[in-house]
């Protein structure tokens, strides 16, 4: 069963960005430049936070705008990015309705969640969780 990262309860988010650092740490590095999850305030800290991450759409708009077939549908929902085919046109970044495709400054290519769940292990309050996609519908 394919998995996806689910934002369980965004109101629990304290904006610590430990998930963003975790995503980058997958590569043994620290920082922001390769993260595939993004936390920002919802118009100031007093209003809470927004968590942006790929929700593994059944029919992903980003795939439709990829001119080289670098982004393909993952069986069950979500996408797989083939970096070899990607020409860094950034159409997918613009094409994602929820803004969940980011730019990897190191590769100079887009970056999108690979549904590994590493970040969820560092969310102190259970805001995000890796969960199974049922019937491919998000």
């Amino acid at each position: 069963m394919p998995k996806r990262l689910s934002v369980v309860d965004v109101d629990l988010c304290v904006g610590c960005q430990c998930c963003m650092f975790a995503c980058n740490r997958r590569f043994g590095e620290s920082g922001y430049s390769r993260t595939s999850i993004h936390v920002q305030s919802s118009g100031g800290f007093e209003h809470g936070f927004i968590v942006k991450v790929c929700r593994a759409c059944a029919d992903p708009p980003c795939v439709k705008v990829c001119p080289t077939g670098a982004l393909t549908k993952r069986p069950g929902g979500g996408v797989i990015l083939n970096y070899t085919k990607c020409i860094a046109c950034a159409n997918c970044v613009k094409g994602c309705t929820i803004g969940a495709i980011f730019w990897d400054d190191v590769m100079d290519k887009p970056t999108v969640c690979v549904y590994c769940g590493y970040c969820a292990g560092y969310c102190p309050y259970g805001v995000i969780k890796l969960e199974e996609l049922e019937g491919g519908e998000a």
Partner: protein
Amino acid sequence: MMLATDLSKVLYINLTSRRCWVEEKPELFRAWIGGTGVGIRLLEKECPPGADPLGPENPIIISIGYFNGIYPLASKAIAMFKSPLNGNLGESHAGGRCAVALRMAGLGAVVIKGRSETPVYLVIDGEKVRFREASALWGMESCSTVGRIIRDIESGSGIRAIMRIGIAGERMVKYACVTTETYRHFGRLGLGAVFGSKKLKAIQISGRESFKMKDPKSYRQIYDSLFSTFKSPLMKKYHDLGTPMNVLPLNATKTLPTKNLLNEQYDGAEALSGERIAENFLGRRTACAHCPVSCIHVAALREPYENEPYFYKTKMISYDYEPIYALAAMLDIRRAEDYLRLMDKVEEVGVDAMSTGVALSWATEAMERGIIKPEDAGGLELKWGDYRAYIKAVDCIARRKYPLFDAMAEGVLFAAKKYGGDEFALAFGGNEMPGYHTGPAAYVGYITGARHSHLDGAGYSIDQKMACSGKAGSPPEVAKLLFDEESVRQVLSSLAVCYFARGAYTLDVVSKCFRPMGIEISADELANIGRAILKAKYAFKYREGFSLEKECTKLPARIFERATPLGMVKREDLIEAVMAFERLVRGD
């Protein structure tokens, strides 16, 4: 992509000429490990001796250290400047996102000099600097509106810090603060006034760097062990109720300064306790970047509009122990909502909560004794517990209205010198007193701490331990404990780790944390660096005319009149301990 050891860039910005450039200083950072250590070295170089703190020559230095953006709980940025409040070392630490934003911009420090002719705000993205017109933001009522506007017109959502001043900073109130991410502050010693003197309204900093480790595997292991401490007993108090958890225990031990230290126990303690505020008002928790603790507790205060039925506003106001001490206990405000309303005003104009509360409590007592009259205050009468009057007074301080508030804007000592009542003007080293009447170590720490802060050497903690063990230390012992603690803390504030994580980051752990980055440095070497930093800070203080001996002649009589759990504090004991500290810090 940078290496984790790449911490060397100092971004210089001159507001007069509107020029900026980057200088690489790898040796400086390697020797002084960033933050406080690098900050003091830059300050002694960039600040000419005898500089006017509000003149263009006074630099603003904001620096970070090796662990920012690399390890969890390393969330502090360090500001260094010559303080307009006490005329010597200005040093203030803030969390929020500024430390991580600076690191992600690939920078180690920013040095801002000169003075803009017209109001300006800076946008720093990596090494790029833009000077933006801020005339329309100048004079704006609320500090948070300024943040909201910059947030809207600049990009960088989620990866930036926005530091700004309120009207108090613009009018150079000597304890004006700089606010970052709405709820965190470079609070003490008047950085906001220095911003104001330069016509600098705000700074946005952002970046998206990454840092490569020499040994990624052990990096992740050490990271995990540090990360897991956030729910441990080491940080439980900050995690659960936050710093207001201190209200009840300090009150129970009769160590919570109340009504300008006319008392040390406070009738509002229950209502203003961390427990009750959480129960009745806690609306949200937030965190500094890269810190899972989320110690920032934000109260939701729902208020009706008086003249519009069925209209309400809900204010989100952060609360902490020190502001509760200064703005509630010291002013005898006994209802949480009244304290929150006053706190909201303090945030709006951008003044240090502790200095403001101490100045107001002095003024209230002085008015009660007839030393000052309502006429000095534009007819405003200050009475214990009258939060409405205090809200007006804060506004007057920020705008420097009426002779009394204009004097209070210079600090409590200045006001007491002008009007009298210096025996109950509670400031040490020119900085208004923190909220611990725990015993002699607290006071020795206020006098000797390089920042005159309770966080320098944590004297209150020394007192509390001595009170528990029933054994008071001798003055030289107290001095040694304070000196050692303040020295170790220089290492943490150089890296720059939040002091709340001091239990997790022992010097041995710090030494281990350096290894995956490819830096070998022993705990002993770190301890030496810590002592050297403290001495360097003192060298700056001495250079600018600070004298511990002179400070000992200015102690307010009030502190010797109220008992502590360790008995009455004795003047001669304090002086003996202060002089012992001086010998340690001078190294002889």
